[in-house]
């Protein structure tokens, strides 16, 4: 009898992976809360929100292999819709006086508000997702740009609801470290379960070879739609949390700059795994923080005759260069194609193989062995 460490069922794999990542994230949160001050805690809070956003993004783009550029639209909708549900009526009366009475008088606690916001996100996601799922894999990325623009224009134009391009303020600060960590773990679990599930597997098959999967009867369009909806909801959740962390925002913040960061995080870590998404969020958050501090240091810096007034967008340049570095050198992303539990299983098998050569295993060179 041979003892093998295997994680055979999708549930086992999902739970194992979520458990590992979740433990790491929770530990990090505890460390930050105990050791670091409010500034670092804010960075950590943002990080966890990013984890949710990138993991959600990966549910669609990672599994389908179609890179898209519109998900921050769902973040914006999540933020605005959520805020309208959680803000005090008095504040709403002042800042968006023309709002429908029903919404104006509501003030919901966190969970119901999240549900409400996700309903709105879901509706918008379906309206766009349906035509998108019928497009070719090459045309979809461009169409998602259209979606991003449409949502942006609507957010700016619907000034009665959103205050247009002016800052939308007065959002209650409902997010804290505990809340975001819990939701991050929920997001990771959702993403893993989908990835390991039958639809997820089929979608990933279509990523590798669309023609082959369709000839096997895989309904690629509807799979993509399913992943799209799930992905939008998770990303919308991240937007809700982001909005309630910022407490004041405008549509411009949910446009290309944010989308750029989101793409960077997914790509840097590795688009095909949830582990990669989390890792990417971590690396990019670190880079952005560093860049932000350097930017601050360089402002007003003088070197001889050269004075730098202000450097714009050091963060964006850093992100861009990091994306290029990954594309040129390590396309699968820093964390590659394996989930954290799969890496563990491989490592474990490697150890056992060197400790006790297993005679019933097939030799690697394909001969029959034995």
């Amino acid at each position, binding site marked *: 009898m041979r003892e093998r460490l295997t994680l055979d069922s999708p549930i086992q794999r999902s739970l194992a992976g979520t458990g590992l990542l979740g433990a790491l994230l929770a530990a990090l949160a505890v460390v930050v809360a105990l050791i670091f001050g409010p500034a670092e805690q804010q960075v950590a809070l943002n990080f966890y929100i990013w984890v949710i956003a990138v993991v959600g993004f990966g549910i669609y783009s990672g599994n389908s*292999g*179609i*890179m898209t*550029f519109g998900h921050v639209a769902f973040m914006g909708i999540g933020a605005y819709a959520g805020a309208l549900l959680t803000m005090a009526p008095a504040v709403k009366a002042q800042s968006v006086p023309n709002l429908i009475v029903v919404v104006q008088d509501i003030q919901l606690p966190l969970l119901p508000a999240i549900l409400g916001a996700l309903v709105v996100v879901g509706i918008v996601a379906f309206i*766009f997702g*349906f*035509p998108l799922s*019928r*497009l*070719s*894999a*090459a*045309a979809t*990325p*461009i*169409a998602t*740009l*259209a*979606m991003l*623009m*449409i949502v942006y*224009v*609507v957010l*700016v*134009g619907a*000034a009665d609801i959103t205050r247009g391009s002016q800052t939308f303020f007065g959002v209650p600060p409902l997010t804290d470290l505990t809340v975001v960590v819990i939701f991050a773990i929920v997001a990771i679990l959702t993403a893993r379960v989908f990835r390991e599930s039958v639809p997820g597997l089929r979608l990933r098959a279509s990523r590798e070879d*669309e023609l082959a999967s369709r000839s096997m009867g895989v309904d690629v*369009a509807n799979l993509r739609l399913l992943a799209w909806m799930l992905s939008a909801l998770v990303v919308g959740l991240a937007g809700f949390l982001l909005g309630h962390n910022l407490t004041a925002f405008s549509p411009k913040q949910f446009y*290309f700059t944010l989308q*750029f960061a989101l*793409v*960077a995080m997914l*790509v840097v870590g590795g688009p095909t795994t949830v582990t990669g998404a989390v890792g990417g969020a971590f690396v990019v958050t670190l880079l952005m923080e560093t860049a932000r501090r350097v930017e601050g240091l360089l402002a007003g810096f003088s070197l001889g005759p050269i004075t730098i007034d202000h*450097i*714009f*967008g*050091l963060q*964006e*340049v850093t*992100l*861009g*260069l990091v*994306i*290029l570095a990954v*594309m*040129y050198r390590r*396309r699968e992303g820093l964390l590659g194609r394996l989930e954290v539990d799969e890496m563990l299983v491989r490592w474990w098998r490697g150890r056992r193989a060197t400790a006790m050569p297993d005679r019933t295993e097939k030799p690697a060179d394909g001969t029959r062995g034995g």
Partner: protein
Amino acid sequence: MDLDLFVQQLVNAISLGGVYALLALGLAIVFSVMGLVNFAHGEIMTLAGYGMWFVGMVIGLTLPFMFLAAILLGLLAAVLMERIAFRPVRGSSVVTMLITSFAVSGILQVTFQNVISPRPRGIVFPPEISQTIDVFGVDVEIIKLMAIVMVLGSLGLLMLFLRRTTLGISMRAAAQDFSVARLMGIRADTVIAVAFAISGLLAGVAAFLWVAQRGSVDPAMGLTPVIKAFIASVMGGLGSLPGAVVGGFVLGFIEVMLQAWLPDAALPFKDAVSLVIVIAILLWRPQGLLGKATDRV
């Protein structure tokens, strides 16, 4: 609607559609040869615009020189971009190239902000171009006529190039079957560089027309028109050159019609409505207006 207004709107539609068509065509040429969706195309247009500013405002030369600056800078920017940023990912998947161009676009935009200025730079054009002349009894702005002439001229020259020159035929061949084209002795490097060069030239013409009607350049100038051009190209049929042209003109028509006919309250949503219309068209014909029905969905 009276004839005056109609003709003016028609002229508007053709000149705006023409700009989109030029941009979309540049995108389609590069895509058809390389499979690259070049997000950074907008930055090529912006750079061409800055070239116009430099030549016109800093050095102080006249309009023809500004035009030359626009197309030469567009050409140079495109070719350099291919050589430096895209050569390392040539032959890789569509997604990889897409993400690369996305990154290049972001880096360039921020570079413009820092090296030049985050604020728009004004450009003074000779006032004559905004004057109107009488065309068949209707007053039409000269710049709009220039736009139509330039667009049609560029399209005509491009068609001549693609049909009559060996290099042009080589490019069409490369777009259909890249590896067999190499068997003909067609150099991969040459074809790709020429594709980028053409896209740069077209972007330069588009930049000239765009800036001439707005009077300024800013770091993100190219972003919106190029994204719309992209979408127009998808609407016409991704990778199809005639499709790109048709898509560009159709989008121009849609935008001008909306501008003329949307009620005032809905005007801020104009861009959103036009894009929704495009998505509706795509729902009806996912392969694009000129795409074949057998194209992959």
